[in-house]
């Protein structure tokens, strides 16, 4: 199974950087996310997670390092967490870490809302 690596590009900072590694199961999303075609960007990531669960079936670690995401992106992040929750319920081992700036109080609310919506435990990690 192939990895997904998308580097952050200075000219289009509305796309986050992506590093989904099929060998160690570590998936990282970093930067900002407010692109126009949100579904088009996130759909391959959702497909990758589903494929990893089906074909590899080993533990997964998600490291969210998003400093900003718009509400459209939040809908697709929710889908990602829903897939994670389903995998956990079926016995899959997944840990979710969210690195956040403690000077951004709104981000903690966002993460709590994701936890309430999905019942996925999200570990809060200060990065600044």
């Amino acid at each position: 199974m192939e990895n997904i690596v998308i580097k952050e590009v200075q000219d289009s900072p509305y796309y986050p950087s992506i590093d989904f590694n099929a060998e160690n199961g570590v998936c990282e999303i970093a930067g900002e996310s407010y692109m126009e075609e949100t579904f088009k960007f996130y759909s391959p990531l959702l497909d990758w997670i589903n494929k990893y669960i089906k074909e590899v079936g080993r533990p997964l670690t998600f490291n969210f390092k998003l400093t900003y995401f718009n509400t459209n992106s939040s809908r697709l992040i929710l889908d990602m967490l829903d897939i994670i929750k389903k995998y956990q319920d079926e016995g899959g081992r997944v840990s979710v870490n969210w690195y956040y700036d403690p000077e951004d109080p709104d981000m903690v609310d966002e993460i709590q809302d994701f936890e309430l919506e999905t019942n996925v435990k999200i570990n809060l990690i200060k990065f600044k």
Partner: protein
Amino acid sequence: MNISSYQKEKVLSFHGPLTINLLSFIGNYLKSVVNTDQVLSSRLYKIFIELTQNVSYYSAEVKEVERGIKSGVGWFLLNEYDEYFIFTTGNLIKKEDGFKLTRNCTEINSLDEEDLRRLKRKTRGEAKIRDIGAHIGLIQTGLLSGNLLDFRISEINNKHSYFTISVRLNK
């Protein structure tokens, strides 16, 4: 198309097609130009992106900015006062969308913070994957602002109305 910037009062204004590259450029400019604390600057940036993207996606006036790429046309204005910022956007809408927008904004204005967060979770959970709609963007704007959404819908003709929304962000 016009961009203007001043030290006081009117910080920034623009009228034209709101493309993603333009919003990204001005949004990042806003982060650096607004001389205030980090939380306020961050909230202003988030409100800027949500409201201008609503114009970009849902304006009834659309312009082709590159071959095959269209973008919604509208305007935004950021004013700074001693105690707060006011951010306003305006755009043409289909007349039939006016009722829904009025209903959504009125609902948002009637709720406190906890109920708004509950509405946001419910709206997001029920939204179709491909199109979350403008509603959750307005809920998020209400949450970030902590103030009422000041909106106005004016009838233009049988097909179109004009939608303006102003949000106050206290310093």
